[in-house]
């Protein structure tokens, strides 16, 4: 156990506190489309909810979150759910691994343009790095017995119980503080030996139903903070968990919104309506959800959302919009409008999904041409001359509707051995539109397995998938006569005509057989994707070896962002020591492309990752320092004049330092400070050198239970291919609750200076008119250099029942 002299701790803390408080750099990102992104508690292995607040959401057609943990090879791209002016997504706990989580957003506009948050990723900016806190040995010393994590319970049943039975001898239990919904309630806590009990309903004058949060601050005998833990849960008023005489219980909420967005002198008015209804009878739970918006129209993908679900211990069935999760190669988180069902019965696991993943959008006919003057362009196509009066037309292509069917049969237990086989078949409806891009069809077969031994200390995982793709099914499967017309008996393949016909006839009921099928030769493994990993958890190490192989023709319509044409090894180790307060991470990755020799050269991608994280928890900031070096090069000689534009030879060095510090100075403060620098030296043909530096600071101060303030600064400086870009953004604001928490006022002002110039003002007022009926007014004002003054104003009414 490392012992650090207390005076040194204090000195270091003081210096860091001064740095944190005096710096003029900080956090917050500039964007034309996203005003802020908030994350729930980011803890190793826990699900994390992400919410992005959108600016000018009328112009946004899709928002994707792209993320990966520090050790991982690939960024995962997932579609966020847009509702009104927010986009949400829940990152699964298995993807949240200490020490850091990197992310950025990809925002697709309705005019087909695209931008990222922060602006310019990956060329002109780096993904945002968030610190993932790790589970500590101390987490198992301080136990919140009740409520359980994310539990929903009745206010009448609510009591808080914290056990110190397993706490270290250095802990002084009597100094423990209990913060309930931001208020110190320690004086009302009963200390029964090593058990702390608090019954809120005995003391709280006004106790709001809904989300609650609990924080336990534990101190050592010297009065220094030893550890703190938080828990979120939901406590509902009995009125919200109604029970009928028949045994049916229900609750829900309804919300309506009107909003006007004025952007670039164009005003758009929106009306949104949402309804959620939860009901239960016995062990069965039912949920209905609907979201209707005036943004819905036939020229874009569906904006409305609706679903009905029923679930029990063994069955989960959902109709309407669902986001099924199979494996990362097959289907994971894509919206499907149809039915999705899962059965878990003992060792048998069945999952099935059927529905539409894309609806038809008819293209438009822009101009007509005769036989003689039709230009040779890809979007000039033959059209029905009887219908349109000309044989050719220039078309802005729409897209066909696309259906998807997927299923998995799994056998075994998640705690031991489980094996699964699955498939996905997805096909465009050729007749759904007249002017569409080429209709396609996709078939993927997949297997997966997981073996856990020695109490999850050894985990062996594997997943493989083989795909077949037909890139044009416009004219369907070959007929026998078409085959006869292509091949002659005297040809090289002529003797196999009948065999070919037989195979075609067997396959065609399931998949369209014509000349657009790929791959033609499966033996090259071009449409194979597979990955296998072995994880060993011994002696405070988490050692993981991963091998991936993804052929260049692998394709799954259920997982369209999978990186293909890449293979190689990724090895990482995370070592923890000092009672889970000090972490070292080391990783090496060696990948290469050109698996099927389809490129002029093979590129090798080598990455070394290392980080050290310190979570002292005793009046010391959490510190994570990381270094990543990417080296990419191919085997083209600089003297090869024919291929010199394809030369890849670059090295990128990235350093980042993240500090998080919660401290008490008069009141509680939560602060973070981060620095990130990146330097790319490009010796390739284009010499795209890039330098990048950003720093950010964020401070939240909890002055009273009613008043919380926030302050942040970001500084950004880049020099990419001799193009310089520099700005600074400051944000300050606060939230104030009054009238016994029935009125909440919030304001935030955020000016940006430099190459990015913007002034943003957000004002929000929320008032509880009667119990559970909230009226919220919101106004945002943005003044941007290129677009002038823009406003978003709206009113939302929400009722919980």
């Amino acid at each position, binding site marked *: 156990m490392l012992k650090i002299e207390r005076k040194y701790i204090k000195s270091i803390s003081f210096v860091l506190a001064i740095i944190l408080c005096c710096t003029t750099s900080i956090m917050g990102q500039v964007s034309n489309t996203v005003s802020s992104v908030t994350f729930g508690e980011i803890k190793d292995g826990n699900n994390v909810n992400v919410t992005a607040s959108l600016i000018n959401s009328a112009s946004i057609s899709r928002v994707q979150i792209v993320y990966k943990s520090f050790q991982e090879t690939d960024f995962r791209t997932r579609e966020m759910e847009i509702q009104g002016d927010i986009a949400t997504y829940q990152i699964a706990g298995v993807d949240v691994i200490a020490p850091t989580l990197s992310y950025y957003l990809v925002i697709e506009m309705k005019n087909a343009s695209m931008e990222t948050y922060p602006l310019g990723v990956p060329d002109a900016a780096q993904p945002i790095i968030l610190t993932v806190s790790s589970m500590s040995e101390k987490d198992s010393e301080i*136990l919140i*017995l*009740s409520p359980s994590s994310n539990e929903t319970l009745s206010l*009448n*049943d609510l*009591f808080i*119980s914290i*056990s110190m*039975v*397993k*706490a270290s001898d250095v802990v002084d239990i009597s100094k423990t503080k209990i913060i309930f919904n931001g208020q110190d309630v320690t004086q009302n806590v*009963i*200390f*029964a*030996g*090593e*058990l702390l*009990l608090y*019954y809120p309903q*005995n003391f709280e004058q006004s106790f709001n139903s809904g989300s609650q949060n609990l924080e336990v601050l534990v101190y050592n005998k010297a009065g220094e903070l030893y550890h703190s833990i938080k828990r979120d849960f939901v406590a509902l008023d009995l009125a919200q968990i109604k*029970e009928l*005489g028949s*045994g049916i219980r229900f609750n829900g909420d309804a919300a309506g919104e009107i909003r006007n967005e004025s952007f670039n002198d164009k005003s758009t008015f929106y009306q949104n309506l949402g309804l959620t209804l939860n009901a*239960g009878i*016995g*062990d069965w739970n039912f949920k209905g959800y609907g979201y209707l918006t005036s943004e819905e129209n036939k020229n874009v993908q569906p904006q409305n959302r609706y679903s009905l679900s029923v679930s029990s*211990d063994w069955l989960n069935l959902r109709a309407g919009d669902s986001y099924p999760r199979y494996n990362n190669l097959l289907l994971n988180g894509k919206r499907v409008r149809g039915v999705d069902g899962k059965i878990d019965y003992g060792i048998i696991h069945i999952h099935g999904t059927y529905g539409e993943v894309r609806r038809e959008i008819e293209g438009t006919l822009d101009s007509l041409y005769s036989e003689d003057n039709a230009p040779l362009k890809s979007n000039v196509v033959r059209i029905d001359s009887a219908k349109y009066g000309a044989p050719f037309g220039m078309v802005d292509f729409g897209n066909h509707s696309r259906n998807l069917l997927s299923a998995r049969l799994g056998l075994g237990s998640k*705690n031991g051995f489980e094996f699964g086989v699955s498939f996905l078949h997805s096909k465009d409806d050729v007749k759904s539109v007249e002017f569409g891009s080429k209709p396609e069809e996709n078939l993927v077969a997949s297997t997966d397995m997981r073996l856990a031994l020695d*109490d999850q200390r050894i985990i062996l995982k594997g997943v493989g998938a083989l795909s077949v793709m037909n890139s044009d099914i416009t004219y369907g499967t070959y007929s026998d006569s078409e085959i006869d017309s292509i091949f002659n008996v005297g040809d090289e393949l002529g003797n196999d005509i009948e065999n070919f016909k037989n195979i075609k006839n067997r396959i065609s009921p399931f998949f369209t057989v014509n000349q657009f099928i790929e791959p033609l030769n499966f033996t090259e493994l071009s449409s194979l994707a597979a990955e296998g990993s072995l994880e060993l958890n011994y002696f405070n190490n988490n050692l993981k070896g991963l091998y991936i192989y993804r052929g260049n023709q692998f394709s799954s319509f259920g997982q369209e962002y999978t990186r293909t044409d890449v293979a190689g090894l990724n090895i990482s180790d995370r070592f923890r020591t000092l009672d889970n307060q000090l972490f070292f991470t080391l990783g090496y990755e060696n990948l290469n492309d050109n698996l099927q020799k389809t490129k002029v050269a093979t590129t090798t991608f080598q990455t070394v990752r290392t980080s050290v994280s310190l979570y002292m928890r005793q009046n010391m900031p959490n510190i994570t320092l990381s270094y990543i070096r990417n080296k990419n090069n191919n085997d083209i000689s600089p003297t090869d004049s024919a291929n010199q534009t394809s030369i890849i030879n670059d090295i990128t060095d990235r350093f980042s330092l993240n500090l998080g510090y919660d401290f008490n100075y008069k009141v509680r403060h939560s602060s973070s400070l981060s620095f990130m620098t990146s330097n790319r030296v490009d010796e390739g043909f284009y010499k795209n050198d890039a330098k990048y530096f950003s720093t950010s600071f964020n401070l939240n101060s909890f002055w009273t239970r009613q008043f919380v303030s926030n302050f942040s600064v970001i500084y950004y400086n880049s020099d990419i291919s001799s193009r310089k870009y520099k700005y600074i953004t400051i944000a300050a604001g606060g939230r104030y609750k009054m009238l016994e928490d029935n009125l909440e006022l919030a304001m935030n002002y955020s000016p940006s200076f430099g190459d990015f110039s913007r002034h943003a003002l957000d004002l929000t007022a929320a008032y509880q008119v009667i119990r559970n009926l909230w009226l919220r007014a919101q106004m945002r004002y943005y003044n941007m250099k290129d677009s002038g003054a823009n406003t978003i104003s709206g009113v939302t009414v929400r009722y919980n029942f």
Partner: protein
Amino acid sequence: MKQTKIFFVLLLFVFSVAVGFIQVDKETTPIALIKKIVQDVSYRPVDSSDWEAAKTGAPLKSGEQIKTGFKSLALVLFSDGTGLLRVRENSTMYIYGEKEDNKINKNTFIEKGLVGFDVNKQDAEEFKFTTPTAVAAIRGTAGYIEVGKDSSTTIVCDHGRIEVESLIGNKEKATVDGGSALNISKKGVIAKGIISSLENDKFNKSTKTSVKKIRIETEEGTIELEFYPEEE
């Protein structure tokens, strides 16, 4: 007259508050606490011969007794966070525990009825169940123990491992693994087998903690009864 009314109202208020607040001994660490109560659950303090109505969140000290009535349920959490007991209807049990350093050795005596359990993997501490005919030691186990009217004991192990010793007769010993069940007759004879469908149903039901309500309209008003519906 008005003053008298005010006095009685105040007296009633003070009495209600006093009764509503749970009395806690601030020196001794309770062994367990009652996480949830459905319907009729009572407990008997160590030094008392009277049963008292149990309240949600009430701490339990070593030697205290819990009793559930018809269609009732009590969820009991141990203070060291190692396990959860589901005391089903018409059951009676004693909670015993002894703190030793940072661990609590626990022993639960089931006098009658059915108790479901979900116990985390233990480090060094003991977690035992005792019945009139057997003693069972568990580690990282879920299942249930039922004591019949003739004092025979049925032990069902969903996963994990349970070591069982008969307390009477030849004092046989046996081990029950996940997916197995064991019966100790009133004479101490042990019979092992796999979990029957009836036992499997009982186990599944023993993990349920949701309740139903019925409302009865009477001339005096509506009476609402909360009950646990699974055990017929």
